[in-house]
């Protein structure tokens, strides 16, 4: 896995002379198969796109299908034939989501800023609808005109019956009223009985009948009221008029603000440039946490990677002795933690550290709140992570030890080296050449080891003074709470922190990989 991308073997661009091939049966069959599969996928995927009018998606799909069909029909572009299958999935489900997420780091995307400005205006206007003063509360009977849902509205005072449709309100004659004041029959219409109306509850609540001053909407299934919007958008001044207003659009913040500096709850998504990044670095409440969390995060990842390697290697070395008995039994016992489902064992460990009925306290005969104190909680999560990770390192080191020729250590012993010196100078360097790439990827994995924290301490314990950041929080669990937490989603800010996380991990890994390559040149 090392970043060893040196060109090996023959110089690039001079393929061996190959005989000209005829068109064989296998060739024809494989081409037909490719075309058939492509056609089948198109046949399945196109109709829904046409039905919903998703022309852009349709265009992308057809272009991709044409490209793939061409790629596998021609004899050229051989490497692409092998790379495209995996790449299609990679682009659709990793590259695109990641790039899209990274771009939200430059916006204020989050609660209150989810959609476009037009969507915000609609939400503000419909959200401000109140019952118009003095307007009647109609008795409502939902009915069908053909297939269309309509309202039959009875004014409680005048007993005047009106027909309400999305186009407006029109008086209706010839309707028959029941004792409850609701319509029981009307010419040309099918009156819905209560259970039928209940089945269409979603349609009923969605229907709005426009009137001169506002909208009539259902309130339940048997009442309807006329409402007026307290706030209305005025395109001329790019502002919202009404209660507490005027609220002027502020394109910097993505909010409608008034003269007093208040803003309406509903905003829209705007570009904020580097504001999120600046906030992570300069806001004292956040940057203070950021450095603290980063420090613990580095310790956690380093101790996890080196600790699992240390234990795994020590056991592998102990078993790596010609006169050692029972290695088969030991190996199976040591690998078992790796075979257990990690998510479940994390939850089991959490309960073993429980203060009142946890196994650890029972065995040690103490009454310690392991996950409740910062120091013990950190110790506990590292211990759990070592337990989960060392079997893998044991497996890997066992394999790598087998590949080191015994003559080397024997020669060192003959030259008078103590076992410790022989290990330090011969075995360890050779092991490291083989295993540094795995150590680096173990570091990168543990740096972002969400499950190890989320399933045990959930980041806690949280100090009473600052409930945002817990003692065992990694950057990733902290970011997760920012993005999805109870305090309101801040996707833009969380994305900015993710970019930082990415930069840190990539930097550490890149430096480590460079060192590995130098090492390989020395020892290999």
């Amino acid at each position: 896995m090392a970043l060893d991308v040196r060109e090996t073997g023959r110089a690039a661009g001079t393929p061996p002379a190959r005989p000209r091939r005829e068109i064989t049966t296998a060739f024809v069959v494989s081409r037909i198969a490719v075309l058939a599969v492509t056609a089948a996928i198109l046949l399945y995927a196109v109709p829904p796109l046409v039905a919903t009018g998703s022309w852009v998606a349709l265009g992308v799909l057809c272009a991709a299908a044409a490209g793939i069909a061409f790629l596998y029909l021609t004899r050229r572009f051989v490497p692409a034939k092998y790379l495209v299958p995996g790449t299609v999935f990679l682009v659709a489900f990793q590259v695109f989501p990641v790039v899209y997420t990274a771009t939200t780091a430059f916006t204020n995307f989050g609660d209150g800023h989810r959609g476009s400005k037009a969507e915000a205006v609609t939400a503000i206007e419909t959200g401000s609808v109140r019952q118009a003063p003095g307007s009647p509360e109609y008795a409502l009977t939902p009915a069908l005109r053909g297939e269309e849902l309509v309202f039959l509205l009875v004014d409680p005072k005048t007993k005047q019956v009106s027909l309400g449709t999305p186009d407006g309100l029109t008086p209706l004659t010839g309707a028959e009223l029941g004792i409850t004041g609701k319509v029981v029959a009307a010419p040309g219409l099918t009156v819905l009985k209560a259970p039928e109306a209940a089945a269409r509850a979603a349609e009923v609540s969605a229907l709005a009948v426009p009137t001169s001053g506002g909208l009539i909407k259902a309130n339940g299934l048997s009442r309807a009221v006329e409402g007026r919007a307290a706030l209305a958008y005025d395109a001329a001044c790019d502002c919202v008029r009404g209660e507490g207003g005027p609220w002027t659009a502020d394109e910097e913040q993505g909010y409608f603000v008034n003269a007093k500096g208040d803003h309406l709850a509903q905003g829209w998504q705007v570009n904020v440039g580097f504001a999120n990044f600046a906030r992570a670095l300069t806001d004292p409440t956040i940057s203070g946490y950021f450095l603290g969390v980063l420090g613990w995060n580095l310790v956690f990842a380093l101790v996890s990677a080196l600790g699992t390697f240390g234990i795994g290697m020590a056991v592998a070395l102990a078993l790596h002795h010609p006169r050692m008995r029972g290695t088969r039994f030991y190996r199976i016992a040591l690998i078992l933690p790796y075979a257990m489902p990690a998510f479940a064992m994390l939850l089991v460990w959490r309960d073993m550290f429980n203060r009142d009925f946890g196994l650890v306290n029972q065995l040690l005969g103490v009454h310690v709140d392991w996950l409740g104190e910062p120091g013990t909680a950190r110790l506990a999560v590292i211990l759990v992570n070592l337990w989960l990770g060392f079997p893998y390192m044991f497996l890997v080191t066992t394999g790598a030890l087998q590949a080191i020729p015994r003559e080397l250590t024997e020669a060192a012993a003959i030259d008078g080296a103590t076992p410790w010196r022989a290990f330090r100078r011969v075995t360890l360097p050779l092991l490291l050449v083989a295993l540094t790439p795995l150590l680096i990827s173990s570091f990168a994995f543990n740096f972002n080891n969400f499950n190890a924290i989320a399933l045990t301490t959930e980041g806690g314990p949280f100090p009473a003074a600052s409930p945002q950041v817990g003692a065992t929080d990694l950057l990733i669990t902290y970011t997760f709470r920012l993005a999805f937490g109870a305090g309101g989603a801040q996707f833009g800010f969380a994305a900015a922190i993710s970019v930082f996380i990415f930069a840190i991990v990539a930097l550490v890994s890149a430096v480590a990989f460079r060192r590995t390559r130098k090492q390989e040149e020395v020892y290999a």
Partner: protein
Amino acid sequence: MRLALRHVFVLVVCAFALFPILFVVSAAINPLGTLASTDLLPSGAGLGNFVNLLTSDTYPFGRWFFNSVFIALASSFASLLLSMFAAYAFSRMRFAGRRVGLLALLLIQMFPQFLAIVTIFMIFTEVTELYPAFGFNTAWGLLLLYLGGALGVNTWLMKGFLDTVPKELDEAATVDGATHAQIFWRVIMPLVTPILAVTALLAFIGTMSEFLMANVFLRDPGSKTLAVGMYGMIAGDHRNANFGMFAAGTLLTAIPTVGVFLWLQKYIVSGLTAGAVKG
């Protein structure tokens, strides 16, 4: 004397490795089935927790088990194939963008994937409307999502292994008139079984334990995987009462993993080493 020390040390580590597992076994056969009543050594033995788990109406464990094994098998098999294709191209062919491609594969893995969940959620909201068969609460949709991660560290592992397979083999086959496809299926694939076994096992274990994506994706009780379903089993108030069933479920979940491990065991050690040494 020296040897005895080795045994003592290994036994200590074995004890560390085994005592949580012993605790799980003890909880699974504990007749009371609660966390508070569970000790390291079982006070009684019974299969009540297993029976409760398998006959429960609230927790369709059998269904979850099937979902998990199906998704894990299908996804590790498919991603293995996709990854092997790519590794073959990266190891055996020289083309523009090869170095960049390899580096990009490594880098994209380092971005915290879970944040992309918001975007993935939006993508699959659309997909659910257009193609319900691949939408939320379906194994096929989750499978597609997992295949997005097919190219990654595993591709590197395989490429490293492939580099150790002598090139003369495929050159000889080329001279004999074999196409690149024939070389791949007939020459390369039989030679790389060890690394296939290792990556298959890693992918299988990874998918069985995957929680974050599955938790967002599978909401319907019948569609859940073991990780999502069993997490719900001891969430909130049920933590103490359901612990016995949970432990029984954990042991049952380990069975397929151990099965795959035993099946692939003879290749594992040599595969891990070979990939790592040259990688």
